[in-house]
């Protein structure tokens, strides 16, 4: 609509009025058909939950029983939210093995992920050689403080998630 006033004949004026009304009624008819013709698409969230696809990238879970402390995940992470450190295994101690048979030559002393920083890109899980680090399907982990978003995967509370996510009991290889 330009700001200069255009002169319109009476016929054109009524014609455009007619067009305005009919085209709107046509549109209203389409919306009206939605009243009965369509199934509701919105999901009433807390009562009904959509099942996520198996590879959905939600909260990270590291199965420390299979982690060989190789540091690959921390290197691949583009936002540096994985803090991992380890010490060499003391001489003479028996070297435990992961589920796929890789020897765990290092003792994991710290495995912390700051999920407040995590960008859920999935690069860390693709480089993991023993597939211990995976994206779980947990998405309800809102917290009150940013500090609560930090997960220590060596703590007993987090290890207790393992049966739910991996489907195996933790073995506590140390």
């Amino acid at each position: 609509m330009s700001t200069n006033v255009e002169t319109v004949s009476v016929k054109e004026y009524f014609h455009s009025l007619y067009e305005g009304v009919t085209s709107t009624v046509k549109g209203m008819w389409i919306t009206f058909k939605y009243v009965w013709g369509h199934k509701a698409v919105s999901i009433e969230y807390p009562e009904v939950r959509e099942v996520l696809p198996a590879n959905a990238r939600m909260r990270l879970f590291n199965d420390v029983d299979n982690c060989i402390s190789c540091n690959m995940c921390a290197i691949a992470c583009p936002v540096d939210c994985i803090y991992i450190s380890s010490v060499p295994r003391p001489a003479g101690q028996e070297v435990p093995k992961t589920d796929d048979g890789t020897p765990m030559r290092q003792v994991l002393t710290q495995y912390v992920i700051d999920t407040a920083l995590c960008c859920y890109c999935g690069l860390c899980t693709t480089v993991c050689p023993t597939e211990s680090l995976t994206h779980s399907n947990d998405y309800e982990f809102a917290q009150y403080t940013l500090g609560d978003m930090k997960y220590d995967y060596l703590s007993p509370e987090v290890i207790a998630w393992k049966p739910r996510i991996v489907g195996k009991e933790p073995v506590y290889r140390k």
Partner: protein
Amino acid sequence: MQGWDVPGEKIEPTRTVETEKLKTELLTLNMGPQHPATHGVLRVEIKTDSEVVAHAIPHIGYLHRCMEKHSENLDYRGVIPFVDRMDYLGAMNQELGYVLAVEKMLGTQVPRRAEFIRVLVSELQRIASHLMAFGTYALDLGAFSPFLYAFDEREKILRLFEELSGARLLYNYIWVGGVWNDITADQLARVAEFCDNFEEELKKYDVLVSQNKIFMERTRHVGIMDADMCYRYGATGPVLRGAGVKWDLRKVKPYSIYNEFEFDVPVADGDRGATIGDCYSRYIVRMKEMSESVRIIRQVLTKIESGPIMGKVSKVIKLPKGEVFVRTECPRGELGIHLVSDGEAKPYRLKVKSPCFTHVSMLGEVAPGQLIADFVATIGSIDIVLGEVDR
């Protein structure tokens, strides 16, 4: 107003209104950064003469993350999640642009199946992005239900992408050398079903919005960006095609395997009484592009070959010394990636030419003389994503 509180002094009326001496002056109006009609955090400083815009100065940078600096400290794979976050409504197309630049320098052969999947997902993403543009544009102009219908269809695409990549919006799906996950026959069948259903939907949108007299009156002859202006500013995509220029990189300079598909480049032709280059033309180009995308997707579904989805790429990507400038056609326009490498495992410089940056700069020239409500229609019609403008 001196002497008001001096006791005993008589207060006389100091002003008398003389209507013939009244003059108006420009009123500065700050639109944004938090304003529903600016599609993000765009701030436009408008000087208005009553209801008419006299000047408009767009201010950007509220979403600036300096992703270009970040990427100088990341390896080539780690940049992809950051590229996603530029244009979060067209993430697949952005990834494709960046990955093509890396692959061009690397000289990687991408398997045929991966190429087909790339074309498939980027065309689906184009539809999803245009649906968003369509929905929010109708919302800007006062129609609410098209927004819901558009989101309903977009949801189907996002659901497919979630199954493919694991994320709904920021996929990290297209990798250097191929794609992350393979697409299953079941998913392809769902895409075919979506295509059949979507053509019906498009007809519905046409009656609901495009042919609506009120919508036409709001958008026709408004915000005219003609071909000359588009060239001067370097505008691309639906803005340039809305100005009647048949310029689409997928046809002019085909990348990936776009040369194997048949499709038309829709341009504004001024039907339904529109001026070429106005808001309605840009809008109608987007609507036509969606049906062209459906055409391409149909061809992908018939032509797709089986095979591997990842080419041979070394574990640590190191590019040769040099630079490339690669352009791809994104939903909003041409994305240009200027990648400079010094032979290390990290980019030396990554410059992104974002189409929206160019289009926002055009607002200052289009705005003068428009009504404020028409200015809102103009902002909506160029379909900006501020994440891409500010990077």
